[in-house]
């Protein structure tokens, strides 16, 4: 498998704060690449730079053979990299259907929709468990469905790389299991996934490889087994040796 995305020396400062520091990593085509780390470790900031929402202070982001660091979001999306938001950002005054339609029509799809656009939207709503919700205003969705809508809208752009930012945050175990199986199905369908998550069980079960961030820097990288045994990682998580086995998220999320 080849590297689809490679990040080198990626750094981002906010005033005096260094949110991401000299980050290096490579993501292979067709894997689920997990990113974990304590609150404020710089996970979302790294995502935002890849997705074009934030301009890197320094560093390079390469997608296939193209340098995309500093590109605006809409250009990055048209190349095939699409993100979801940690705190869902639906177009609240529009229907669920229309939310997905925006991604479908403007996402610069590389493959045409199967059947009509309406068919394809319906298929995506069904896949994400939102069928029957299409006519509802997105602002009226409960949290779980807002997360699903984030996923649906991103999928509508027909991404090559999907950046999922805590897509299971705040969901109950059943809903979480549901979303995780969707992610695996997407990966099996050929989409490469970068996945930020706090729920350790979810990460360990789902990811092919994991990178651990702490204070903006990479602490470790490897398969779930390697990460589980990494002394540095265990220390970063307050020395709790038992953290890996917990069913509930290791940090309570708002």
């Amino acid at each position, binding site marked *: 498998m080849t590297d689809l995305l490679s990040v080198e020396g990626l750094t981002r400062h906010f005033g005096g704060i260094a949110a991401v520091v000299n980050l290096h990593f490579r993501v292979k085509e067709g894997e689920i690449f997990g990113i974990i780390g304590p609150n404020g470790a710089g996970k979302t900031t790294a995502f935002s730079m890849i997705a074009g*929402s934030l301009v890197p202070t320094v560093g390079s982001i390469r997608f296939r053979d193209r340098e995309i660091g500093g590109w605006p979001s809409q250009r990055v999306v048209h190349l095939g990299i699409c993100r979801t938001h940690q705190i869902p950002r639906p177009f609240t005054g529009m229907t669920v259907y229309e939310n997905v339609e925006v991604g479908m029509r403007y996402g610069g799809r590389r493959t045409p929709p199967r059947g009509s656009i309406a068919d394809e939207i319906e298929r995506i709503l069904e896949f994400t468990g939102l069928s029957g919700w299409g006519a509802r205003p997105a602002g009226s969705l409960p949290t779980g469905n807002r997360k699903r809508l984030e996923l649906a809208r991103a999928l509508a752009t027909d991404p090559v790389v999907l950046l999922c930012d805590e897509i299971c945050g705040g969901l109950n175990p059943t809903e979480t299991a549901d979303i995780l199986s969707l992610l695996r199905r997407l990966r099996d369908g050929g989409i490469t996934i970068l996945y930020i998550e706090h729920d350790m069980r979810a990460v360990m079960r789902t990811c092919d490889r994991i990178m651990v961030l702490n204070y903006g820097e990479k602490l470790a990288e490897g398969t779930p087994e390697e990460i589980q045994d990494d002394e540095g990682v265990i220390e970063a998580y307050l020395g709790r040796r038992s953290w890996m086995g917990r069913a509930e998220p290791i940090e309570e999320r708002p």
Partner: protein
Amino acid sequence: MTAAPGSRTPTSRTAYAVAALALLAFLAVPLVGITNNAIRLLLTTFLWVTTSLAWNLLGGVTGQVSFGFAVFYGLGAYTAGLSINGGVNPYAAIAAGGAVAAFGSLLIGLPTFRLRGPYFAIATIGVNEAVRIVMSNLEITGGASGLRLLQAGRFSQAEHYYAALGVAALAFLVSWRVMHSTFGLALRAIREDQDAAADVGVHPFRCKLAVHALAACLTGLAGGVFAHYSAYIHPDGVFAFATSTSILLMPVIGGLGTLSGPVIGAAVYSIVQEEMVVNFPQFHLLLYGALLILIMLFEPGGLAGLWRRLARRLRGRNAADPGAGIAAQQQPTGGGS
């Protein structure tokens, strides 16, 4: 502020019928021997309907509040006025007014659309004042004393009336097209969350420039018709900040993001102006202030929203099936696109 839910539903037959009937009625008005004063009032209303619909495209649908539409009204008026004085056919002169206003909107939009929300709004106030001051001091346009249009080749009253009606009908048609198009979908997404829209591929800056130009063009056409009709324009009239706030006020009162709202708002505004300004100068400002506050507090959908709510309540009381109202609200939208 949110648009009417389902504003992308296929327009109902009744809506088409109402629009067509209204157009026919307005076309017939000059033929039925109505007073000149009534024609003048209707003509003025058409011009305000045009600017109101135009502003709504940028402010209501796209959510970019501009206090600078007098610039486009004035550019249209002055371009038409100068062209007519230069011997250009009045229709071509009015069209040129629209084109120059659209071009002006690009020059204004390129820097100001880098700003967001209140910063954009404030920047447009600055642009409006700057343009007014420049126009007050520009000699070739007559400076502060204004521009008098030559009388040769003037329209009849009916011709002025039809020009205004034509521009309003165009604004209505353009608004309808935009609001039911894929472009309109992107504009609404930008209004809801510009960054999230960009994250799924919308180019907010380009979309804003495009809709700004469209709105400016319509506003410029209205300014052109106005210049030809009134035969005298001056910077403290067409370029006045008060003109910008009037253009903004109408769609806000009527209901943002809808088609009917800006039309209703313009009609209400025109009638209030006509009745109040003569008899109670200054009092109309109080009325607008009160209306604005009431709308912001109780009915963000404006008069159109109030009307929808009343209609729903009345229908709900008469309907035999209590579920009917809910079913109507949940009609799937956008499916037939």
